[in-house]
């Protein structure tokens, strides 16, 4: 047994400096895709929507007049749009992609004769509970009950790594708990399947108030590529009130950490991910 202790000590400290500092070593994988309207043309908008395997990019209209909806809550990070139109769709390596309001994951651009695509001002759809009071009530620690509501196991693979030396979520006061009675937060992964719906609802009901709900991964947020199936429910926030949305397929371990810290008010949303649209102030497209 002493040989294991020596081996463990010899590895030294491998833990990520996130969130105090950036962790470039963990950021090879993008956490999200960002739309830069300045690089978008009507042609690339239509082509990217055609190539998108989910409803993350949906276009209507033609080259003369049309509209593109961009929903990070359905983006499975397949990389098709970023390869097709790198000047408009860029991978985001910053792990701080979680948001408190579902609407912050969506953008919309329109184009019409004589003009390139411009950003459309959008009402924030507050499907989630945009709570004014932060959950500082939880003090310095948060106990999390995870429910796999029908994932591919990619999200669980990443969640399990949160306990590994590289991420060590306990250093941030975050813990997984087996009992919903001891939990402060419900973390849901996967598209909610018909067969998991009852277990999910019962787990939520067993968590004492106040309780947070985190939707991790696009399956839980919008259904991802499993949306519209006869065995799946689609968005979690149609069943439960969601406080934090962590996009990704799966969300990277750092994105999950950021989402959990955001839930307890120990982190902020990344501002540049969703520039607040101002009515009539859309940027003129260049193409």
């Amino acid at each position, binding site marked *: 047994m002493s040989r294991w202790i020596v081996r463990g000590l010899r590895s030294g400290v491998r833990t990520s400096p996130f969130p105090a500092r950036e962790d470039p070593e963990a950021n090879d994988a993008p956490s999200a895709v960002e739309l830069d309207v300045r690089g978008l043309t009507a042609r690339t908008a239509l082509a990217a929507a055609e190539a998108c395997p989910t409803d993350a990019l949906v276009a209507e209209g033609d080259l003369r007049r049309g509209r593109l909806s961009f929903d990070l809550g359905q983006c499975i990070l397949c990389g098709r749009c970023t390869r097709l139109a790198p000047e408009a769709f860029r991978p985001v390596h910053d792990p701080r992609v979680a948001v408190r309001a579902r609407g912050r994951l969506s953008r919309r651009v329109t184009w019409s004769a004589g003009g390139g695509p411009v950003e459309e001002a959008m009402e924030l759809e507050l499907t989630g509970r945009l709570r004014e009071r932060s959950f500082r009530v939880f003090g310095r620690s948060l106990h999390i009950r995870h429910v796999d509501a029908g994932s591919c196991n*990619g999200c669980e693979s990443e969640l399990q*790594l949160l306990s590994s030396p590289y991420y060590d979520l306990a250093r941030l006061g975050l813990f997984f708990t087996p009992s919903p009675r001891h939990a402060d937060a419900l973390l849901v992964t996967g*598209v909610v399947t018909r067969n998991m719906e009852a277990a999910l609802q019962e787990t939520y009901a067993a968590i004492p108030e106040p309780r947070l709900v985190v939707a991790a991964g696009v399956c839980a947020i919008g259904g991802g*590529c499993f949306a519209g199936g006869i*065995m799946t429910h689609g968005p979690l926030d149609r069943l439960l009130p969601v406080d934090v949305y962590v996009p990704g397929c799966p969300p990277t371990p750092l994105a999950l950490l950021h989402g959990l810290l955001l839930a307890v008010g120990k982190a902020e949303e990344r501002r540049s991910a969703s520039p607040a649209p101002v009515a009539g102030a859309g940027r003129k497209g260049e193409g």
Partner: protein
Amino acid sequence: MSRLAELAPALGLTPEAGPPGELRAICASASFTDLAARIAVDAHLSDLFASVNPEGIVLTAVFSLAGDPDWLLLSTLLSGDRFPSLTPRVHAASWYEREIAEMYGLVPEHHPAPVRLRLHDWPEGMPPMRCRLAPGERAPRGERPEVVPEVRGQGVFQLPLGPVRSGPQEAAEFLFNSGGEDLVAVWPRLGYKLRLVERLAEGRPVEAVLALAERLAGTSTFSNGLAFVQAVERAAAVEVPPAARLARTLLNELERLHHHFGAVGRVADATGLLVAAAQYAMLKEEVLRTCAALTGHRYSRGILAPGGLAAPLAAEGMAELAGRLPDWRRRAAGLGALLEDTATFMDRLEGTAVLEPGYAAQHDLVGPIGRSTGVDRDVRRDHPYAAYAELAFEVPTDARGDAEARVRVLLAEIGQSLGIVQQALDRAPAPSAVPPDAPLGAGSALGWAEAPGGETLHFIELDAGGRVRRWRARPPACVNWHPYAHACASGNNLTDYPVIEASFALSHAELDR
């Protein structure tokens, strides 16, 4: 001529050649079961599935023989909704037939246990793969008919575990029957994660179904995607350039590495060996980071495309891999040796959850679980794909069938995979050009790959417009869950259960689909 090609005429079948390595025979529905049973005397039953065709319902059985590079697909057009069950003669057909029965509403006559496998409260009389529902329409909730074996005896009680598990794990439920210490019987209740991906694929373009194939299961993303994309390439006769084949081989092995590092780490965790669990978790994380550096995704999602790779492997990723590989080899060898030298670890594995080779053989098992019961099968060697035919590797086996055998096979496979990655690196895969969009037309083919859990088979049928008409996915967990309950009941204690589950490392997402 392969042995399967010789066998078919002896049974009165005239197989036509399908895509390379695929023999296809069609028979009358009345003789299907008998022929399948006679072929299965020697051959492995690798899959059995139904499809809805314009003419009616087609049953297809897929066979393979050890040491034979061909697959044999035997199909029949059913004349009604009933067919004689193959299960009484071929035990490995049991779960396939239960799936056909619940999903297609067919009746396998004389099946010994014709109960549902993955459906819970889905109403009777509307088979999910055949029923019509308007978009957004929900089927009403019906009964959940099931047969849960009840164990009687003094002090025997039933203890449910799941479907919400203790940690961040997959949703699954196991009913334990215990007398206190001993695990008398374990009854897995499956299907909690049923997404019905095969129905979701119908009518969709190949690219969208590839995204689904990559999301059957997270830790077998690449191999399932690869088997699917190879099926498409074979159906459309698309050539894959050598550089792309080598790159695919490299990624297939990196996936095996991160899966196996994770699996061994979980076994260590189940035995309370936390330092080992942490050490293996670090290795897994490093492999995932290297995959991200190579492909832009930690699980290599989105890198595959029909004809090659959607983007060349990044040069920085190759450099990172070359830098890390010697360290991985050193650490993996050191950790493996230390585990085998740790009595508290090995004692928990020895004789735990035994699958006797004779019993296991009836299930036509695949992958590390099959190989730990002495089944010497590996599609990388037996049906070479990508660049495996050019690389040297061994297929480790162990015939004891207990948790120790399973872990030893995993450890040996880690060594082999590291060796394959080294060989692929030595050949320095040239950046492969992005393939032009291949025109896809009507066609069908089988695709396969050795996923971390064993061979994964994907059968696809494309329509004239190149869209997917039928996609059948048979990942390894569909096969390997079958004897699980039996292994649990081989004289183990309740406290062995975490070790048993970890040593099998079976995917629920793959089975439930």
